C-alpha cells in the first residue's frame, strides 16, 4: 500500500492506565494526513495522557498505536528516533529551556538532527521565529517575554524540523483571547501551507470550532470515547448528553 494513503496515526483498542487505575478504555480512531484533529473532553478525562501515548512518552497498557502504519513503541532505537524526529510537540507550558535564548531553543533540534552548518541553522531559526511573529526577539530568554510569546516560541521550536505531525497540548491555555486567536490562525496557516497533520488537545470551545476538522470526545464517566466527527456537526447532532453539554457549554441536559 502506498504510504500516502495510510492514516498518519492509527489507534487500535487502546487502554490507558496509571498503575491499576484505568483512565480510558477501548479507544479506536485514526488521524488522517493533513487534518487538524482535536482531542477534547473535560478536565481529568485523560486528554493529555492520550497525547503522551501518541507521542510515545507513555506505553499503552493494552492496544497499539500505529504511526505511518508502524508500531513505533516496539520498534528499535534508531527507528524510534527516526519516527520521533518527524514529530513536533508543543507542551502545555511551552517547556522552553529557560537557560537558553529563543534562538538556542529553536536551534537545538536542528543541531541535533540535521547536518546543516551554523549559518544555515541561524537562517532556518530566524525564519521559524519570523513565522510565529517573533522576529527581533532571537536573543531573548524565555523569562523575559510574555506568556503568549513563550507559547509561540515553543511552537517555533516544535516546527523547527518541519515535522509531519505536530502535537499541541492545550495551546491556548493561559493566553488572552487575542493571543489565543492569533495562535489559532497560526495553526490553521501551518496546516494549509505545510500540509502538516496537527493533533490538538484542548477544551477551548472557540478554538475547537475554529481549527478542528475532526474532534474526538473523551467521556470521563464512560471511560471511553463517545464522539468522533466534525465539531459543528457533533454540536448539531450530539451523540450523547455529555457531548451536547460540552459543546454548548451548558450545565443542563438535552431537552
Amino acid at each position, binding site marked *: 500500500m502506498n504510504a500516502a494513503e495510510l492514516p498518519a496515526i492509527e489507534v487500535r483498542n487502546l487502554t490507558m492506565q496509571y498503575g491499576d487505575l484505568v483512565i480510558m478504555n477501548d479507544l479506536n480512531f485514526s488521524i488522517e494526513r493533513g487534518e487538524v484533529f482535536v482531542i477534547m473532553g473535560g478536565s481529568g478525562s485523560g486528554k493529555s495522557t492520550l497525547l503522551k501515548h501518541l507521542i510515545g512518552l507513555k506505553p499503552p497498557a493494552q492496544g497499539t498505536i500505529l504511526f505511518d502504519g508502524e508500531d513505533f513503541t516496539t520498534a528499535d532505537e534508531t527507528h524510534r528516533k527516526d519516527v520521533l524526529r518527524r514529530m513536533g510537540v508543543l507542551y502545555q507550558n511551552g517547556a522552553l529551556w529557560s537557560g537558553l535564548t529563543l534562538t538556542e531553543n529553536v536551534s537545538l533540534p536542528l543541531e541535533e538532527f540535521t*547536518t546543516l552548518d551554523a549559518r544555515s541553522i541561524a537562517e*532556518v531559526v530566524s525564519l521559524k521565529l519570523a513565522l510565529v511573529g517573533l*522576529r527581533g526577539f532571537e536573543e531573548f530568554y524565555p*523569562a523575559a517575554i510574555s506568556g503568549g510569546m513563550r507559547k509561540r516560541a515553543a511552537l517555533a521550536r516544535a516546527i523547527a524540523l518541519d*515535522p509531519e505531525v505536530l502535537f499541541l497540548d492545550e495551546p491556548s491555555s493561559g493566553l488572552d483571547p487575542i493571543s489565543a486567536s492569533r495562535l489559532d490562525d497560526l495553526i490553521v496557516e*501551518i496546516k494549509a501551507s*505545510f*500540509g502538516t497533520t496537527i493533533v490538538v488537545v484542548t477544551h477551548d470551545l472557540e478554538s475547537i470550532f475554529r481549527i478542528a476538522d475532526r474532534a474526538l470526545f473523551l467521556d470521563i464517566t464512560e471511560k471511553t470515547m463517545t464522539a468522533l466527527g466534525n465539531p459543528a456537526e457533533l454540536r448539531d447532532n450530539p451523540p450523547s448528553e455529555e457531548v451536547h453539554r460540552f459543546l454548548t457549554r451548558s450545565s443542563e441536559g438535552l431537552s
Partner: protein
Amino acid sequence: MRTAPAERIATVTAGVAELRYQEGVLLAALSGDWSIEQPTPRFESVLAQDANSRGTVRALTFDATRLGSWDSSLLVFLEQAQAYCEAQRIEMDRSALPEQVTRLLTLSRAVPERDASEDQQAKAPAIARLGGAALSTWSNVKSSITFAGEITLAVAQLPRRKVRMRWREFWVVVQSNSSGAIPIVTLIALLVGVIIAFLGVVVLERFGAGYYASYLVGFGMLREMGALMTGIIMAGRTGAGFAAELGSMKITEEIDAFVTLGISPVEHLVVPRILGIFFMMPLLTLYADFVGVLGGMAVAVSLLDLSAKQFLGGMLSAVTLIDALLGVFKGLVFGAVIGFSGCLKGLQTGSDAGAVGRAATSAVVLGITLIILANAVIDWLAALLKI
C-alpha cells in the same frame, strides 16, 4: 511538513536552483526536492555563477514547474533572494511560486522586526564600568544590611507576639538539622579529632611531650575545629538547602503570593529557618566536640603509652568550661551566618532554572567565607580579652 512523504522515500533528487538572464530579468528555475536534511543551494552562490555575463537586473522571477517536494530549506533560500532584492532594489516577482510558499513568506514578514537597537548599549569606558561595579557592590551590601535588619526586627518582636512565626517550619528545620545532620557531623568530627591527635602525637613526640597531645585535642576541638567544621558542613548542607528551597519558591511566584497576601516572607519563611539553625548549631557543635575528643583519644591511646583516663585527666587539667563555651558561642554565630546567607541568596534568586543552582552555590560560598571571617574575628577578640 514535507508535501509528499511517499515521494520522499521513492525518489530523492537534491534541490537545485539555476539562474537564467534575459533582458534585465533574472529567472530562477527551481527543481528537485528541497529538504533541510540535505545541503541545498544558497542564493548568493547561485548568483555568483556567471555573474559577469549578465547585464543590469531589474527583476527576479521564478520557475517552479519542476519543483518537487519542499520544506523550510526552500523558504530560507527565498528569504535570501528577497534580502538580496531588497538590498539591490530589484523587484521580486513571486507569482510563479506555489501558493503555500507565497503565503508562508508573507506570514514570516507579517510582523515587522522588533527594533533591537534599543537593547544594544554602547560599551562603557573602563572607569564607568569600575564605578558601576562599585555601585552594584554597594547596593548589594546595602540590601544585605537591610535584610539583616528586617530579620533582627522580626526576631526582636517575636517575644511580644507581634510577629506570627510558623512554628511548624521551625520544627522542620530543627529536625533536619538534628537527626538528619548527625551522621555527617559524626563522621567529619571524628576524623578531625583523629587528625588533630595524629598531628599532636607526631609533632610532640619529637620533644618527648606526646602526653600533651591531649591538650591539643581538647583546645583544638573545643575552641576551634568543633564549631568550624560543623559550620562548614552546615553551610554546605543547610545553607544550600535554604537557598534552593526559597529560590524555587521565588521562581514559582510563591514568595510573591506571600507578599500580596500581606504576609512578610521574612517573618514567615526566613525567621523560622534562621532560628532553627541558630538553636541547633551550638548543640551540634557540642556534639562534634564530644565525638572529636573521642576520636582524638582513640588515636592517642593507641599510639602512646597512655590510658583513656590519663588522656582525659590531662585534657581536663588544661581546658576549662570557658573554652567549650567559646566554641558554643561560635556555633551560635555560625548558625546565624548560615541561615542569613542561605535565605538571602534564596530570596535574591533570578528567574531561570539555572538561577536556583547559582543561588545555592553562592549561599555556600558566602556562608563559608563569613564563617571563616567570623571565626577569625572571634579568635582575635578572645585573644584581646584573654579568654
